[in-house]
């Protein structure tokens, strides 16, 4: 709700006016040491899915950190060169289009630049790009699992895909797109998927559960983490710990083997819509920083390195222009955080501090 409304409407009684002014001008607590490095305008080119609004549902850095990809609610899958961006529009290169919201996008760890995306049209798509970011080859396949809601890269030729009906598919992406395994896992939609190692994935569902599965579809472990729907799931670089956000307050840190709760940290006044565990290669939970964004309190948050006691330490917070819709990503050099907002734009913030 626009803040202006309440100011205009209510501003009259002195006692109320003071509170209204205070609320209207307040920034979140904590030092403002998030500085915005870049602003990438929306990919405004129309798509066939109709006039759909909202911000990117998923964003991803390329392995070299030079590119950023976004999946948009319009169905567009686009790539931009980060260095090109400077409050300008038209820098997005359209690489593909879903006939419905695109809900997940990722770069495959291959020599050639390859994007994979999933969407509401029940389809998984791949696109190989040349140096000019033009699409050289593309492929797509409808999986028949209902609208697709989550995507995780397993290796250069495999991904895991989640659907709104609680199913997970292991999909092989080579010349042809092949479904290797499909299994039922959650009651309701899969909110997020992450790869723990070569053989295991973790999933977060609208049933409030985090589940560990092997790629053969066997459920290894399950834990009810929240009484309401989960929103997001992140994994540490060593694959041994998880962070789950839900529509309730608090981010739950979990041991990725036992799914035992290690800590619950309150990073926002309301839900955490997107969460990252940021650390160098092979970093453990203690070596990671917790970064999160919330569409409840409209802030981007970052902690210090959590340490062995899983404490937030010095926290950083900044108000986000509109509302994060779930898209949050960290650059490979850990220097930048990309955050999508509901106006369709993506902002890059410097992740300073320790």
């Amino acid at each position, binding site marked *: 709700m626009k803040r202006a409304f309440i100011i205009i409407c209510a501003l009259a009684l002195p006692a109320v006016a003071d509170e209204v002014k205070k609320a209207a001008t307040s920034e979140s607590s904590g030092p403002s040491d998030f500085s915005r490095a870049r602003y990438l305008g929306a990919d405004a080119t129309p798509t066939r899915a109709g006039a759909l609004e909202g911000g990117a549902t998923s964003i991803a850095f390329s392995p070299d950190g030079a590119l950023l990809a976004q999946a948009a609610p319009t169905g567009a899958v686009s790539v931009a060169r980060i260095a090109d961006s400077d409050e300008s529009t038209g820098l997005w290169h359209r690489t593909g289009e879903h006939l419905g919201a695109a809900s997940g996008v990722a770069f495959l760890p291959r020599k050639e630049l390859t994007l994979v995306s999933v969407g509401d049209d029940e389809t998984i798509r791949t696109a190989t790009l040349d140096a000019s970011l033009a699409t050289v080859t593309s492929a797509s396949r409808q999986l028949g699992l209902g609208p697709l809601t989550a995507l995780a890269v397993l290796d250069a030729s495999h991904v895991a895909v989640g659907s709104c009906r609680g199913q997970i598919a292991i999909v092989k992406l080579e010349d042809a797109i092949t479904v290797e395994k499909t299994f039922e896992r959650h009651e309701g939609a899969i909110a997020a998927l992450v790869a723990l190692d070569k053989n295991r994935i973790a999933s977060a569902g609208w049933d409030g559960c985090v589940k560990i599965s092997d790629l053969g579809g066997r459920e290894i472990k399950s834990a009810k983490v929240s009484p309401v729907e989960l929103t997001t799931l992140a994994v540490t670089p060593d694959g041994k710990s998880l962070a789950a956000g839900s529509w309730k307050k608090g981010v739950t840190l979990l041991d990725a083997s036992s799914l035992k709760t290690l800590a619950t940290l309150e990073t926002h006044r309301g839900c955490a819509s997107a969460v990252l565990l940021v650390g160098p290669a092979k970093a453990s939970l203690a070596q990671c920083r917790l970064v999160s964004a919330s569409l409840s309190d409209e802030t981007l948050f970052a902690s210090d390195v959590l340490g062995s006691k899983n404490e937030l330490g010095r926290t950083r917070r900044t108000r986000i222009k509109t509302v994060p*819709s779930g898209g949050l990503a960290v650059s490979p050099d850990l220097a930048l955080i990309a955050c999508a907002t509901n106006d369709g734009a993506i902002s890059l913030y410097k992740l300073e501090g320790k």
Partner: protein
Amino acid sequence: MKRALFVALVLLLGTRVQATQEFSPEPILTTTAENWERVELLEDKSSFFAKEPFWKDSRRQLPDIKAGFAGEAEPSSARFLLHCAKGWDRTDDKLPPILLVHGAVVDATKSWGKDGFLGRGGAGLAARLSQVGRRVFAITFAHPHGDNWMQAEQVANAIARIKTLTGAPQVDLLAHSKGGIAARLYCSSLRKPGMTPFRGDVRKLALVGVPNDGIDVAFAYPNLNYWVIMQNANAALCWTEALVYGVWTDLRERSLYDATEGGGAFAGQAQMLKRWDTVYGLYESDEQFDTVTTYNGGKGKVSNSLGIDHAIKEGGDLIAKLNKAGVDKRVAVALLAGSKTAIMGFCGERRGPSDGLLLVRSALATDGITKAGARVFRRDVLKLSHVELVYAEPALRWIEETLGP
């Protein structure tokens, strides 16, 4: 219809009563419109119906709708429009004809016609379904926020008219938002004296963005009241008075409370209410004032509210009754929810997954639907807002598939 009259009526659960005898399945006026080959004005003279009060911004002002109602901007709820899309009389369609039931605020043209929802709607669902060979009809209720009991009876009457026009024994029902409550009511055993019992003439019931387990967004987000005031929006308030431009202003006339509280123009809204604070809590924000008093009732810093429990009681706790009754076992039900909070330029309901207005859990709730044996054969979520569910390509595709063979 004054809500007080309803309170006096006894609900006859499961009792067979006579169908409304006064409905004449012959139009009293037939017009044409850009989106429709034929628009019929139909009337049921039963005393069950009444003229409901209109808030000034709720009047039927769209030219083809107003013309369809014989120039009346505030028609009696005894009347409704039946819109016949191109190809409604085709003989090669072996599937049941489709009846589209619109939600609150809008009408058949805005919902299902070309360029609906401020031009965003594209060709529209009616044209889409016609193009794939279906016989398509749509209803426009007299009142955009009207009593759901009366609207359920008009759904029954519309189906009767479609059966007369086409000779088909059954229809498929597609309802959006509030329209789903009327559609569910007809397909249930729940009725008041004089209402038509379900006749087994619905094959499929597709409920798109329908508050199957109720809604409380108007009470959960106090600032929504200010938004409605500032936008002159065709929507109900849950405040009875508020500080507007520095002056305490009487808002009862546009509130969703009943006539005894000075309201009465949004009867159907109060009937859809249910508390969701027990699941998701109340929305906490420095920018929202009077959160607790708006929800639970009382005077806050900038507003006065009678509270959601008061409104639920005035609405007869219809959601609880619907969920107790279930949908008739002869009906196959499909549910579609949206999960994008961005709606019409702002971020709406965000205590849980929602389409900006309606929580996904409510839209996908099946317990109350399956109580009487109805089967839910499809249940999906698309990343769309409440209004996009009506016109966005993935929703149209879902509807087309769902209402297929």
